[in-house]
């Protein structure tokens, strides 16, 4: 692509080396890989069993009650939707902004997005009282002319998330086409080669194809960009459109989007750092890339911290006794541990990235990223559960803590996500061959194989 995208840090590599190193990740899996795969399968089995309990016995196997009708499941839904943000952000927005450190990491980030959204999409189904009737929520044509209630934020949710998943998946696939062609060219088994042939859509790498390809890529990047903003805004409206103190607030859309990007970046870091060690691709995904992400993570963490402070200010400024009560309850009440865990993990710990030493140390990067993963889960739990447990009438106040079945589903969702990811890294290149090559300086291209 254009000159300014040339990445000086890839200077010492050749095209052949890039092909070899990246495609080597698709080689025969080792024992550790298989072990991880089986572990993830086990977690998925646990999660599936727990979901089965909800279906056969009822939602009562969770600890949900009156007044807390949403708990761990919706918390984890928002958590995964949030994680599904960094991918498209890194990929589309940074592409449009021509940010140089994007190339090495965007494939892994996009994959995170798709698998996170696929995981998140399960939760609204899991939490339903009657999942077998879930199709009532879809706007399908039927003889009774019964439509869903388009005023309900849950219907908006269905539409926003399915749109986001569709566009992200197409964007992901378009980016993969040249790489699939490279795999096709290397594969020897004819049946497998045939599959790659279809998926590569006849890619030959001609100038004409590149011209159309780039136009399509820019188009999809442009389409995906507003969706990054819209999807989490819509998810935030599940809460903001309600009347419940602590939910009913206009700040939620930007606050949730910032939080989503924060959590998404943290998850991409959490995945990339072990990945580059495992596949020995530290020379392609360099500290330079990781530091770039750390800076954006720090920036979004500051936005999130500001949003926390603003919520308290507005609660006080509104003079609304219900609003004031819930913001007194959060830091001092029954769930104070969750609240302070959230502040520590999302604001205090990420501010360590102000120090270059921390954001250029692999251990520092990984630990902060893991802390943010926890913190963002705490944030959603804090918003959802505290508000429901202490709403308008003190008589109704109650408390909630997840049951083993709910924890099992949470574990299962991680198993499911990483299972998909593990399968992905052995099937498709987790780093874009084409774009890494593109961003290499001119001189080295000469010794391309």
């Amino acid at each position, binding site marked *: 692509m254009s000159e300014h995208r040339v990445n000086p840090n890839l200077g010492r590599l050749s095209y052949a080396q890039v092909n070899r190193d990246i495609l080597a990740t698709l080689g025969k899996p080792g024992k550790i890989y298989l072990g991880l795969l089986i572990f993830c399968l086990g977690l998925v089995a646990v999660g599936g069993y727990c979901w089965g309990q909800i279906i056969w*016995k009822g939602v009562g196997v969770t600890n*949900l009650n009156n007044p807390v009708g949403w708990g761990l499941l919706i918390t984890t839904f928002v958590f995964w939707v949030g994680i599904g943000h960094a991918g498209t952000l890194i990929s589309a927005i940074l592409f449009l902004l021509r940010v140089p450190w994007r190339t090495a990491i965007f494939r892994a980030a996009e994959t995170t997005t798709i698998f996170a959204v696929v995981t998140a999409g399960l939760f609204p189904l899991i939490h339903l009282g009657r999942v077998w009737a879930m199709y009532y929520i879809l706007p399908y044509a039927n003889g009774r002319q019964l439509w869903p209630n388009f005023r309900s934020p849950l219907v908006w949710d269905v539409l926003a998330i399915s749109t986001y998943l569709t566009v992200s998946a197409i964007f992901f696939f378009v980016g993969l086409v040249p790489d699939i062609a490279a795999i096709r060219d290397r594969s020897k088994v004819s049946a497998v080669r045939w599959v790659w042939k279809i998926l590569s859509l006849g890619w030959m790498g001609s100038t004409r194809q590149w011209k159309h390809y780039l136009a399509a890529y820019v188009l999809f990047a442009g389409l995906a960009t507003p969706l990054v903003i819209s999807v989490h805004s819509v998810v935030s409206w599940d809460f903001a459109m309600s009347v419940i103190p602590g939910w009913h607030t206009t700040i939620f859309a930007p606050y949730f989007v910032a939080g989503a990007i924060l959590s998404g970046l943290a998850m991409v870091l959490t995945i990339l750092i072990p990945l580059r060690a495992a596949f020995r691709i530290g020379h392609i995904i360099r500290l330079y890339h990781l530091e770039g992400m750390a800076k954006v993570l720090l920036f979004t963490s500051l936005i999130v911290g500001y949003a926390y402070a603003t919520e308290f200010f507005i609660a006080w400024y509104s003079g609304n*006794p219900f609003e004031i009560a819930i913001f007194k309850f959060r830091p001092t009440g029954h769930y104070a541990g969750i609240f302070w865990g959230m502040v520590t993990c999302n604001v205090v710990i990420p501010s360590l990235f102000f120090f270059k030493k921390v954001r250029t140390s692999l251990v520092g990067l990984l630990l902060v990223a893991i802390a943010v993963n926890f913190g963002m889960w705490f944030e959603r739990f804090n918003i959802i559960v505290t508000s429901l447990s202490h709403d308008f009438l*003190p008589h109704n106040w109650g408390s909630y803590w997840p049951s083993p079945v709910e924890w099992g589903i949470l574990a299962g969702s991680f198993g499911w996500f990483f299972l998909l990811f593990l399968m992905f890294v052995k099937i498709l290149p987790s780093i874009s061959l084409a774009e890494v090559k593109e961003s290499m300086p001119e001189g080295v291209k000469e010794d391309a194989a």
Partner: protein
Amino acid sequence: FDVALAGLPQLPEVAPYVHRLMKAANPVVLFGGTEVLGANATATHAAVLLTNALRGALGKSLRFGEHSAWNKVDPAQRTFELVDQAGSGKLDVLLVSDANPAYALPGGLSAAKKLAACQSLIALGYEHNETTELARVVLPTHHPLEAWGDYDVRDGAVGMMQPVRVPLTASRHTGDVLLDLARRAGKQPSHPDFRGVIAAHWTSRVVPDLTDVLVKGGKFSGPKSPPAGSPHGGPALVPQRLRDLAGPLAKIPAPVAGAGQATLIAPLSAALYDGRATGRDWLMELPDSLIQSAWEVPVELALDVAASLRAETGDRISLRTGIGEIVATAVIGSDLAEGTVALRMGGGRTFTKEKLDSGSVMKLLDPVVDPLSGELAFCQARVSLTRVSDGELVSVSGGTDSQDRFLCLSVELEDAKAGHFPMMTRHGDVQPEHGKAHGKPLPMPADDMAAEGKRPDDNNYELVKHPESRWGMVVDLDKCTGCGACVVACFAENNIPMVGRAQVMKGREMQWMRIEKHVFRNEGRQLRVRFMPVMCQQCAQAPCETVCPVFASYHTPDGLNAQIYNRCIGTRYCSNNCPYKVRRFNYFDYERESPAQQQLNPDVTVRSRGVMEKCTFCIQRIREATNRAKFEGRKLRDGEVQSACAATCPSGAITFGDLKLAGSQVARLAADPRGYRLLDYQVNTRPAVVYLRRVYSGEGGEG
């Protein structure tokens, strides 16, 4: 009287009450319940009666009822003697019918041991209990709902009981059993069965044909006219007899004394009475309004007692008197007087499906009687208390402090008389300027929504219109006693599943309406407890309706927030978004053990797991009545439809009807200046339920 007062010792606690009693225009002093009745019960009543007589309340604010069935009952003293005789083997045969002396009598009597010693104890009854367990012969008899019978309502009115269903099991009527016994003894009764006895009794005495009695609703006027001299149909109190009352006063025994940290009070339980209803699911799951606890008979500890024990709500407490020791679950009762503990009757039953954690208070009592009446002295003992272990109480209340949220409101009688009503605004309950009334009256749900005028934040959605009628309810907080009969009526009418102790503990009770307890302290720092029944408020701008993705929650043209059970997919969003939290989710399929399914109301759906359910003002009754009116080609009359709660409320606190029907009772009451709508001004929900403020007199505002 003032002179007499001057001679009395100065009692600072009593002084303000005496002052108010002397000042009031129509004073009345009320009698206490079992909780104040010790061995001096008769004397206490005499003193109260005398005070009322001296302040001229007799026949005015206080009037006497007609003779009660209680007058015909032997005092407890007689029962105690009978049990003693059984224990000493003096009785050949003892017949116990529909009673449970082995459980219900004071522990000091050792009734179970004595009855077990009786050679032929024969128990008749419709359920297995502690006494049938001891009996040589147990004869199952009809439940009252299966039996013919009769009863005295009051002098001049007697009623017939007829069975409402065929007997569930192979039981017999107690009367038939006795008739058979007579036959075996060689006597030939005049009638083949007990129904014949009853029919013959009533037909010969009052009317020629039994059918006549039943056609009249099973009830008819007796021959007796009210005694002369009593305007209310009750006996007149002859002034000369007042002198007799002075007698008992001279014999007031000393107050309860003895070892132990606290005085034990043994009140009757509101739902379980003396324990005879313990184990019945509806009454077990009905929370006691004062304690806000279900499936338990906890011991209430006064604040100072709890502090000295370092006990918290839910702890297991051991109570010991000279008679016995039991363990009960504690609840800190801020409503109790210093140095007292209260344990309601009803705990410690053995033959119930679900066992309670708390024992029976009767085990702590001696058969001490009031010498004047021969009745058991309920307040007789001091108890020693020890904290045994941690535990958990099934509490249904998240808090009784309204947190200045303007939820359960009151008004001063003087202000109300002068027309100075506080007005609900978005900032709460605003009192009028001193000596002035508010200029603009409150808009009421009886008015058309559009006519209510728009507030600035009213423009999100089109206002809901109710073209013909809007069903509404008025709840008079001044009349509500918190008895909970409405809640149980709702159970029965709407097929509400009982979820059991563990699920109530988790906060999953399915009750569509509840009695909230609110505790206030007035300016004199006196405690004031108020009860507030809360059911679905049937908002015109309902938060639940907009959020349901599948239209399971929708608004009917006559103003109900209806719920389509088979459309619901169970997102629970409606419940989350309900400011009143009156929606209930079916977390499980709750089983109805046979034969409980025979109780189900055929007009109401039985909901399955995964579905949200709620109060719809008994929509099945509304639809039945509107259809009937339509078939008969007429308009629905006011009062023709009653919700189950309104029909059941013994004090008439709940009024139901059409707010848009001109002149309807509910519309009239909704326009009462005492009226306000719960959370309406805070959340803008426009409920169809209007609460009427509790009225207090001469106490000042709330501090």
